[in-house]
């Protein structure tokens, strides 16, 4: 069997998925957790031909060890039951999710020396993630030197943003010198949603106007006009935009200075630790998972109620701002991501009070669109703007980018048709 491996190396984790190249089906997936921080382990799940799952402790002081552990799991060296490939030679290509393509990538790319260097050049923008992504590429290169590797960038989809959306009001010289601007993230998800929305509405993919709302651990919203991204809530980094599980979202820059001074902390600590990992829902409540938060809210916890209200409120504001940015000429508002797809309460609360601008959901349809894993139109009858729930599929985009790069048919999404567009 010929296979495609996808890898997503985070700062302390390595997620993977193995696909049957011919059938394009998922064969096995898993994650190595606690890479570089000790007590690491792999959780491996086989899906085909028979479901099987196991966890093995194994120290991974670096990503190279984690990748080699993944290969052992796939080839049955850790546990014979986990075996899905007889030989590493079954792997035809590896696709990496790379966080930050900066201004250098408008689409996915075969990892050549030049592309590798460009990812290195973008480390300033993704100082935590890009090195992890590169470590993954290095590790694969060492173990499978002949196998083509593809970089799929979280940022690429947003290179269509116009300057008025991607420029901050900060000094232009920072843009010229350091390319400080909005880049955007969750690109493969928003790309998928944009294409599927067009299909669901029976519209030309380049005539569709939508606001796509991805609510998972991270939250991002994209304004889509004529099928391309024209604004986006995450910015220079994934910290920007609305409040999330552990991230503050955008805050007054003076707050960073205030906290640095008040607690004698470095900017690194305040931005990368406090605002990225100790803020958001967690900062209010000590809870990160929005499902847990909703549970507490239903039990009447006041603090959790406040955190939930702010969480919803900021998404509402962002949605409202993008509807206006699109001149309210919007075909659909699209919910996706773990919470976006399954949180019917969250969707209902976000959309409350949007009737005057033409958005209204059918409560029964909304309740039904939970954990069914299928696309649904939950709009109320007569709503000018449709409300859709679309289970996003970032892996599908990655897989198709890799396959198309292998067979030479790949191009930027404005000149390329994915299988899921039909």
């Amino acid at each position: 069997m010929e296979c495609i491996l996808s890898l997503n190396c985070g700062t302390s984790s390595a997620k993977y998925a193995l696909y049957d190249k011919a059938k394009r089906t998922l064969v096995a997936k898993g994650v190595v957790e606690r890479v570089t921080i000790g007590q690491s382990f792999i959780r491996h799940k086989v899906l085909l031909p028979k479901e099987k799952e196991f966890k093995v402790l194994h120290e991974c002081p670096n990503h190279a060890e984690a990748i080699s552990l993944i290969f052992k799991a796939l080839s049955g060296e850790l546990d014979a039951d986990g075996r899905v490939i007889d030989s590493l030679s079954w792997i035809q290509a590896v696709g990496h999710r790379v966080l930050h393509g900066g201004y250098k990538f408008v689409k996915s790319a075969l990892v050549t020396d030049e592309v590798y260097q460009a990812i290195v050049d973008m480390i300033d923008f993704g100082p935590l993630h890009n090195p992890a992504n590169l470590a993954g590429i290095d590790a694969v290169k060492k173990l499978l030197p002949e196998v083509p590797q593809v970089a799929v960038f979280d940022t690429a989809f947003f290179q269509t943003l116009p300057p008025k959306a991607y420029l901050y009001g900060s000094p232009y010289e920072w843009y010229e010198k350091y390319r400080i601007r909005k880049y955007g993230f969750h690109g493969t998800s928003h790309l998928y949603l944009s294409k599927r929305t067009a299909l669901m509405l029976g519209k030309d993919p380049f005539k569709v106007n939508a606001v796509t709302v991805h609510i998972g651990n991270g939250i991002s919203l994209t304004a889509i006009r004529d099928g391309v991204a024209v604004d986006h809530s995450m910015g220079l980094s994934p910290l920007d935009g609305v409040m999330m599980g552990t991230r503050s979202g955008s805050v007054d820059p003076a707050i960073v200075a205030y906290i640095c001074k008040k607690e004698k902390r470095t900017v690194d600590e305040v931005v990368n630790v406090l605002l990225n990992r100790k803020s958001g829902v967690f900062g209010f409540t000590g809870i990160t998972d929005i499902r847990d938060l909703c549970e507490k809210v239903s039990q009447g916890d006041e603090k959790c109620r406040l955190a939930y209200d702010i969480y919803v409120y900021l998404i509402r504001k962002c949605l409202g701002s993008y509807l206006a940015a699109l001149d309210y000429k919007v075909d659909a508002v699209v919910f996706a991501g773990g919470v976006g797809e399954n949180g019917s309460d969250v969707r209902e609360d976000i959309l409350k009070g949007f009737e005057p601008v033409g958005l209204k959901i059918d409560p029964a349809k909304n309740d039904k669109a939970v954990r069914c894993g299928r696309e649904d139109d939950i709009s109320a009858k007569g709503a000018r703007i449709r409300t859709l729930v679309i289970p996003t599929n970032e892996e599908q985009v990655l897989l198709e980018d890799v396959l198309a790069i292998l067979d030479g048919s790949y191009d930027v999404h404005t000149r390329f048709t994915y299988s899921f567009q039909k």
Partner: protein
Amino acid sequence: MWVILESTPDRVRFDEAGPDGTAEARGGFLEPGEEGRLAAMDGLSGVAHVLSHGGEAVRLPAQSVDGRLLREILDGTGFLPEESRRILERTVRLVEALPAARHLLLCDTAFFTALPEEAALYAVPHRFSRQGVRRYGGDGLLHEWVWRRTAVLMPGTRRLVSVGLGNRSNLAAIRDGKPMDTTVGFTPVEGLPSDTSSGDVDPTLIFQLSSRGHPMEEILEMLSRRSGFGGYCGRPTGLADLATGRGGTVEEARRIFLHALVKYVGAAISTLDGLDALAFASDCGAGAVELALEACGSLGFLGIRTAGLPVLREGAPALLSAPDSRVPVLFLPARRRQILYEQIQFSVKE
């Protein structure tokens, strides 16, 4: 006669007003140590001390103060910026120097102390919220004035988006006279880009610049004084320049500003669950009207129709919306001094 004292970053401006606060203004600048000049003024009945940021302590837009109350505010535990402390300490000195005069504190953040928590709080670790890290807003005296004017001109208005258009623009979502949200945050840097300040940025920007060797003070200074329209165009650029400027960087700056403005109007409409009136207040005249009309262009699908450039009469409000517009759009010429006078008048009458 009343005197209004207002601090600019470098010095203190004073303006004279008649006994009821309405007379033609005369004024000048008080250099440091010249505060005694006020004591020599004939017929001084009151001093209005303008405080742009009253922190958590000052909760009334116009408040009569004496030395004891000022001390209480200064000694209180609530958050109060350093600059505001200096202004309040000067106020204490003037209250002592001018015991016969009435002293009024006019505070630009007071209106927004009533913001709902979901609009006021940041999603930072909660201990900082307890220390006073929150959205304070700005230009509250203006927005409250806009609400009062709109209530008179458009009776029955409940949900109002009030846009202050100037070199430092900001916006407030108001329901039944109460603030629901605003663009200015912990400091005036957040929100819309201004003539010199950036508006909203990703906080990560500070980390990336600091890792490239820029000290924090420099970064903040750049964000508040060398950003915005001027930072983009590379030369001093105000709102009037944006309105009249054609081509090149000024036009791009105008697009950036309008994009941010339209987004904030959209966000405010979602805050208010709709809109009954939209009011633009400005002392920038025709240029501001042009920008306001352009912003309204994005709201056509909401049934907002504009009527083209109105004839502006000195100081008189103008209707920007067409008769068939679902929501009225007002343009209110707003002079800062006039707003302050009206506030004094209001307080004196009480």
